[in-house]
């Protein structure tokens, strides 16, 4: 308290325009400071992103600022014994001492083998700092970088239209099918603005159908809830596609012919059949022959049929799709996903009818296809062991509707201020870009990275594989042993799967350094903590996954830091300087922040820059010298609504994939690279078209008959917020978060009553909790809110991730997605299984 009083501002009452960071998105905020104390946070009404709205988390940010569990100064552990619940015996030290300690450890590692440093980063707002380990020479990610949220989603989006995320068109969509996603209702992209747009869309009559094992807010507000067995959304999508193509013939043939590669001829090897000039070809039924894709003489594009072109048998990609989907009948898919075949048929028809094939709309002087029916999906639908196939199937459901990036349809969302990455690719296609978080990592055997990024040419960093590799180096032919862990706004001991393995891995590290704001499950293992400012005390120009809008906003200190903390960006620069790679890191920052666009602003290799200076250069390089840091301090943001040309078909004239030839080809290359290594590496998911196959969690499993899922609520989207008393108190008695949700029929069969203590047991772990019976849960499902998962303050949480594996067998070999559904049995707590 005393520290804070000394630092109080002379002004007694003011509002500071800034940016939220209670989740990874970047809503505009106004922060009220009275007598030097942050007393209120409101949405910034001048920001067209969140329109003055805030979610519950954004409203309560000052309780993190004032959390007594904040790390108030650099601290070292005095107790050498480590483990959950073991008091580290923290001792405060000076920043000089702390940086000497950190840099000493890291410099020694870097001079022997930089690969011995593992980094876990989770700060999505300063995603540029994710590259810091690479500048150090460490290729690892020891944290969740999407393996159970977007790992299978982002690569398919990037390959399709260079987007990072996607969401349906709030403004023009009339029929919104929501599958395993909280968009517009409870989570994902910029919740306050999205919820506002969704509510407006529903009020103007947009129909919402929600497919989900649990009655989420999206299901509660939908016109129709379609319960589904967890982890089977692809079967549902395939059943719909079968019905659209074979039963209703309701799909956008014109879109497929003219805006995708669906008509491109595929040879017997699964790749494009090329002309003598190396061009992709199509079959022209008008001319009765194959022509190069851009031949001006093309009369029509065949989508069906098998053809012989110069002695080579080939078929349009769409024909191959038909042949796969033909036996994925709604009846067969019903057996997998439990959604009645008649429901799938009806929804396929409703979607097709709502899509208004052939209609166009004039927007800002340009005519666009108008397809106001779209399928929106996220984590629940695609975070699975065959997630790439899931993601592809759901994307193709939209492509069949002809709605990709057109008014009313399924719209790409860029990761950040860089926007989309539009370049012409081969054969008239948009150049695919699955590598939005970092550039591709070239193949290497054995791999340098513990998450085997070298073996995922299109996927994302599967941090859980790093856990497995630390414990089983021989399995991956590792040539070194990681020694030091640096966590940066990351809590792997809580957010990683397979907790038993994570703890064993943690015990192998000789030194753990944490850069963070509060004490949590991971900092408990640290040897040294370097405390960062909170977002209410720091400066950052930022834009993260904004649907609908574009432009940088400025986070600026509402008050000066109340503790002896330093900005994490400055900490990392300081370590780079002390370890002797400042030149490399400055070069990375130039590139990552787009400062390379302005040679005069570029960071010199040998100079140490402060965060604010770098932010100033970032702003000026993004805009111009008038829009420098001072301008942003005064005006807050440059956020504007994206116009029609920026939103709809920004790559107009280039085709997008329907047949994912690029994925199939990447698999071929990967197999060739592994040839001769004698190493077995599964590449079976590098396929151009989706299909159903049972994954590791499907089928009869008498020992583990139920399917455990986890979910977020608006209050706990990013359950780190459970350390905030108002949030934890709100969720403790609430309908969806009061306990482990079970259908009453299932509970009755198990002899479990509401409130009974239960154990949930998977092949990988066992957790306990209290049963909460709900008619809003599919009978096969055990639903565990992330609000239950924290084990803070001596509370024993129902830690869902303990139920999950960290095994390759449960990992999508294409995307790196981890199976996020666990097969489980439920027992009364303390008793043996019946």
């Amino acid at each position, binding site marked *: 308290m005393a520290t804070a009083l000394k630092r109080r501002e002379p002004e007694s009452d003011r509002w500071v325009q800034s940016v939220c960071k209670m989740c990874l998105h970047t809503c505009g905020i106004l922060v009220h400071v009275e007598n030097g104390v942050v007393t209120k946070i409101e*949405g910034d009404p001048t920001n067209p992103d969140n329109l003055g709205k805030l979610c519950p988390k954004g409203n309560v940010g000052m309780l993190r600022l004032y959390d007594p569990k904040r790390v108030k100064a650099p601290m070292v552990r005095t107790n050498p014994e480590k483990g959950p619940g073991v008091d580290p015996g923290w001792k405060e030290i000076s920043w000089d001492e702390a940086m000497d300690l950190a840099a000493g450890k890291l410099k020694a590692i870097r001079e022997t083998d930089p690969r011995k440093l593992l980094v876990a980063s989770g700060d999505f707002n300063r995603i540029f700092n994710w590259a810091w380990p690479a500048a150090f020479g460490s290729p690892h990610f020891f944290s969740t970088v999407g393996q159970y949220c977007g790992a299978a989603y982002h690569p398919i989006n990037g390959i399709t239209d260079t987007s990072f995320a996607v969401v349906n068109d709030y403004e023009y969509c009339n029929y919104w099918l929501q599958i395993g996603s909280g968009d517009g209702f409870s989570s994902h992209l910029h919740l306050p603005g999205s919820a506002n747009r969704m509510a407006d869309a529903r009020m103007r009559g947009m129909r919402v159908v929600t497919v989900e094992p649990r009655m989420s807010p999206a299901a509660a507000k939908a016109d129709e809830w379609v319960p589904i067995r967890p982890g089977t959304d692809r079967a549902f999508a395939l059943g719909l596609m079968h019905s659209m193509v074979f039963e209703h013939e309701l799909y956008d043939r014109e879109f497929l012919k003219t805006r995708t590669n669906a008509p491109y001829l595929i040879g017997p090897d699964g790749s494009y059949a090329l002309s003598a000039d190396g061009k992709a070809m199509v079959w022209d039924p008008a001319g009765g022959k194959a022509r190069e894709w851009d031949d001006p003489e093309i009369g029509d594009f065949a989508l069906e049929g098998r053809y012989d072109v110069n002695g080579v048998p080939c078929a349009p990609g769409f024909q191959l799709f038909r042949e796969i989907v033909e036996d994925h009948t709604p009846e067969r898919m019903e057996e997998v996903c439990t959604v009645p075949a008649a429901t799938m048929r009806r929804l396929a028809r409703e979607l097709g009818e709502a899509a208004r094939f052939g209609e166009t709309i004039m927007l800002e002087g340009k005519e666009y296809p108008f397809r106001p029916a779209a399928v929106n999906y996220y984590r629940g639908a695609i975070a699975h062991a065959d997630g790439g196939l899931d993601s592809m199937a759901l994307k193709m459901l939209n492509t069949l509707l002809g709605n990709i990036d057109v008014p009313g349809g399924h719209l790409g969302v860029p990761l950040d201020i860089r926007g989309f990455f539009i370049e012409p690719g081969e054969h008239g296609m948009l150049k695919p870009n699955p590598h939005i978080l970092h550039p591709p990592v070239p193949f290497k055997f054995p791999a340098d990275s513990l998450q085997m990024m070298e073996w995922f040419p299109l996927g994302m960093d599967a941090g859980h594989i790093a856990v497995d590799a630390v414990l089983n180096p021989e399995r991956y032919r590792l040539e070194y042993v990681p020694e030091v862990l640096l966590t940066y706004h990351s809590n792997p001991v809580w957010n990683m799967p397979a907790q038993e393995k994570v703890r064993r891995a943690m015990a192998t590290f000789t030194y753990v350094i944490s850069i963070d704001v509060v004490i949590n499950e991971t900092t408990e293992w640290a040897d040294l903590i370097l405390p960062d400012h909170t977002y209410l005390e720091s400066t950052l120009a930022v834009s993260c996954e904004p649907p609908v809008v574009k432009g940088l906003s400025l986070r600026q200190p509402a008050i000066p830091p109340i503790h002896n903390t330093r900005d994490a960006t400055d900490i990392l620069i300081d370590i780079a300087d002390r370890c002797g790679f400042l030149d490399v890191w400055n070069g990375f920052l130039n590139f990552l922040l787009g400062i390379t666009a302005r040679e005069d602003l570029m960071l010199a290799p040998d100079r140490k820059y402060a965060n604010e200076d770098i932010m100033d250069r970032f702003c000026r390089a993004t805009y111009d010298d008038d829009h420098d840091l001072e301008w942003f301090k005064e005006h807050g943001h440059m956020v504007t609504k994206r116009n029609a040309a920026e939103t709809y078909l920004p790559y107009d004239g280039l085709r997008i994939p329907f047949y994912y030839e690029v994925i199939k080809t990447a698999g071929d290359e990967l197999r060739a690279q592994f040839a001769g290594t004698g190493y077995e590496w599964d590449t079976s998911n590098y396929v151009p078209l989706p299909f159903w196959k049972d994954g590791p969690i499907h089928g009869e499993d008498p020992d583990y008959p139920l399917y455990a899922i986890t979910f977020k609520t608006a209050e706990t989207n990013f359950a780190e917020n459970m350390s905030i008393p108002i949030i934890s108190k709100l969720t403790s008695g609430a309908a969806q978060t009061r306990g482990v949700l079970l259908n009453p029929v299932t509970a009755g069969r198990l002899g479990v009553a509401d409130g009974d203590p239960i154990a949930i047991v998977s092949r990988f772990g066992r957790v306990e909790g209290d049963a909460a019976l709900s008619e809003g849960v599919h009978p096969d499902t055990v639903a565990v809110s992330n609000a239950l998962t924290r084990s803070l303050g001596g509370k024993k949480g129902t830690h869902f991730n303990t139920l999950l594996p960290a095994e390759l067998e449960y990992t999508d070999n294409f995307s790196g997605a981890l199976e996020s559904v666990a097969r489980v049995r439920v027992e009364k707590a303390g008793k043996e299984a019946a």
Partner: protein
Amino acid sequence: MTRWGMVLDLARCIGCNACTVACKIENGTPPDAYWARVYTEETGTYPDTKTTYVPALCNHCEDAPCVTVCPTKASYKRDDGIVMIDQNLCIGCRACMMACPYSNRFYLRKGVLETGYHGERTDFEELKWALFQEGTVNKCTFCAHRVDEGLEPACVITCPTDARIFGDLADEDSNVSVLIRERNGRQPSPELGTNPSVYYVEER
């Protein structure tokens, strides 16, 4: 004469609790007081289940039984319809809590304010909780301090879906009057005869 009122749109509300939290921060209410809140109602049998989110707050009744019953005139109604409590007059007898049919009043027990949210009082609680007296009753004020400045209540401005709409019931052309008329707004438990200034609308 203005009569402030609120319409709660059940079609729009997604049960996110932004209102609950915004109210707690704006008014710095004690830990157990939820002037604004959202109930979740689950009805039906799987798979024909229905979940409804019902936001709630003090109804600022025209004929407020809590005001009538108060022995010290601590509870009073302003000319603009807002029902308030003067903590300096409140003796904590809690007759008003018995009288309120909507459970919209909260008693602040002695000792509650001694420890803060995190177990110790921080700068936030020092500043915000200074407005509360232990041993008295508190309730939603329609954010009268904001309304007097021409601002809408905190729960209204933050609501992501615009499910809370604030306005003048006495003006038949106001946002709230039009909504109530066009979407068949109904008061909670009108049979109790308290004439609430809060209305619910359902069908979109």
